[in-house]
């Protein structure tokens, strides 16, 4: 704003002095004086003209110089502006780049921490998934392995094992009658089968072709009745036997028994040898990893609860049949 005002002042200052020089005039009649006057006038005019020229020259020079100085000033101002704009823009860019780099780095660190395999997917993720998977599979095998074992018993419904053979089997080793084998996964599976058969008692005799119709019918009726009443107990005992079985229903794989899997699970999450490392591992997990760990265990709790439900269902069936037995008198 100051610059145009200054320029206007300079122009006014240059225009003012020219006016008084042109105002000279004379009214004297003496020829000599007139001649002198004319000479003087001519000289003066010449001088004035010269001066005018001079002044004009100087003024134009001044104008030129001032213009040029103003041009320099304008150019400088423009340069300043340009430089300032560039600098502002560059600086802002640099600030933005720095902040964005910092934010980017933080985002990378965050992402790695939240989702990385070491800190964001639960403690020892692969081993945990293995443990969960083998436990679920082993528990899932219980029903099927139990059913197989149940069908192979010599007292299973529909079987017709000769009484002599059944007696021979039961008397082969009378010490194989300890029910403790059901609670010991290390005991032999065959011993568990022997205990179930000894507990079930003798297979019911079936009628032979030599028997008369009514006797045969009665014998068959009694045999079927007893077999039916025994069966829920045999299914339960076979399921318990399957809890210690290492059978796996997938070709080419072996599995540890469901009881051993439950022990491994307790070993991992219930204070066993792996627990301390697991608990320490929690401290290094991100929120994402902790939530995965939590959810993983909840899913396993859910799967185990299902086992509990099935176990209770079998037990209830046994009690229902106990009631029927108690209510029905001699067989």
């Amino acid at each position: 704003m100051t610059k145009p005002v200054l320029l206007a002042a300079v122009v006014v200052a240059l225009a003012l002095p020219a006016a008084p020089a042109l105002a000279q005039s004379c009214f004297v009649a003496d020829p000599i004086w007139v001649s002198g006057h004319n000479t003087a006038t001519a000289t003066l005019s010449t001088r004035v003209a010269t001066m005018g020229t001079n002044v004009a020259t100087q003024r134009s020079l001044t104008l030129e110089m001032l213009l040029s100085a103003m041009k320099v000033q304008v150019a400088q101002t423009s340069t300043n502006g340009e430089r300032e704009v560039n600098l502002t823009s560059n600086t802002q860019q640099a600030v933005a780049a720095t902040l964005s780099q910092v934010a980017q780095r933080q985002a990378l660190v965050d992402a790695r921490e939240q989702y990385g395999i070491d800190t964001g997917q639960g403690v020892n993720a692969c081993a945990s998934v293995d443990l969960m998977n083998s436990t679920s599979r082993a528990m899932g095998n219980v029903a099927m392995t139990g059913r197989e074992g149940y069908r192979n018993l010599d007292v299973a419904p529909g079987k017709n094992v000769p009484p002599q053979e059944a007696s021979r089997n039961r008397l082969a080793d009378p010490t194989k009658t300890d029910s403790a084998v059901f609670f010991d996964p290390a005991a032999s599976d065959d011993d568990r089968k022997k205990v179930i058969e000894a507990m079930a008692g003798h297979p019911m005799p079936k009628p032979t072709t030599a028997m008369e119709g009514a006797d045969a019918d009665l014998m068959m009726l009694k045999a079927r009745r007893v077999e039916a009443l025994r069966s829920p107990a045999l299914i339960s005992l076979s399921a318990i036997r399957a809890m210690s079985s290492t059978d796996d229903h997938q070709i080419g794989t072996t599995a540890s028994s469901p009881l051993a899997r439950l022990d491994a699970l307790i070993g991992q999450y219930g204070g066993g040898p792996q627990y301390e490392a697991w608990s320490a591992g929690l401290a290094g997990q991100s929120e994402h990893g902790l939530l995965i760990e939590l959810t993983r265990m909840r899913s396993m709790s859910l799967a185990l609860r299902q086992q509990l439900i099935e176990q209770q269902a079998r037990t209830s069936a046994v009690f229902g049949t106990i009631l029927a037995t108690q209510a029905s008198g001699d067989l």
Partner: protein
Amino acid sequence: MRAVWSTRGKRCGFATGPIAERARLLSAVKVLTAQSAAGSDQVSNGFRASSEALATTVVTQDQRQAVALAAHRYGSIGYDPCGSNTKAQGFYSAMTGSAAARREIVSPVRAQPGRYADPKDWVNDVRSGAAPDGDALYSGDAKAATKFINTVVGPPDPQPLTTTATSTNDLDRLEKTGRDTYRSMTAVVLADIAADYRADGPIAKTRALSSHWQGTDGGAAWAVGVAGQHDRGIIQDAVRMEAANLALIAHQIKRGIRTEATAAALLLAMVNARITNVVPNPGRAQATPASLQTP
């Protein structure tokens, strides 16, 4: 100004004024230009410096906040994790010790599967000392538990007079196999319960573990403990609780086997006690029982 424009002024004098004036003006403009450049430099430098300071401040502040947040997050480890670790480990060793404790309780029982013994020792056991009491199972007293179990299981089978393989002997031996499975079931299940209730057994340990967070004050101590903790600390508590929960469900399944096995044995014993069916035995005086009157 006036001196320069008087009539006596000479050319040089006349011109000197405007030239000096011009020089001053030009000088002023130069100063202005220089000042403008210098001012611009100042503005630029100032702007650069303040921007640098801004970036540095923001970055430093950010870093400081990140460090503070990390310290808060990773310093939040939930409520007394060492305590819950100790309790969980106590539960595990109690659980693994139960089988040995059970065997210790069950082995002095006189009636053992597949064995014969003189019943007089059993009679002495029952008659001597304190009255056998089912409360012993929950008292943690292994000897009293043994006495109770010994009493309810009953006397051992005496050695048969003859060991020749007669049909009567065979029948006795067959009936013993069934009876032994029922008796040993009673003995092992009751002994297992008594073992679980020993002073440092799984019952005591699960009680400690399952009440770690709830405590005896409705969880007030826990609430105070995690009040200032980052979310992480609370999630870690949830994880540890779920781990304990998972371990207890696994334990519950294992112990549920006892109920199921006992119920199954009871059903079989009841069925066998009611069988009156006999098989005609041609050529022999006595008919063969269709099954065994085991109890």
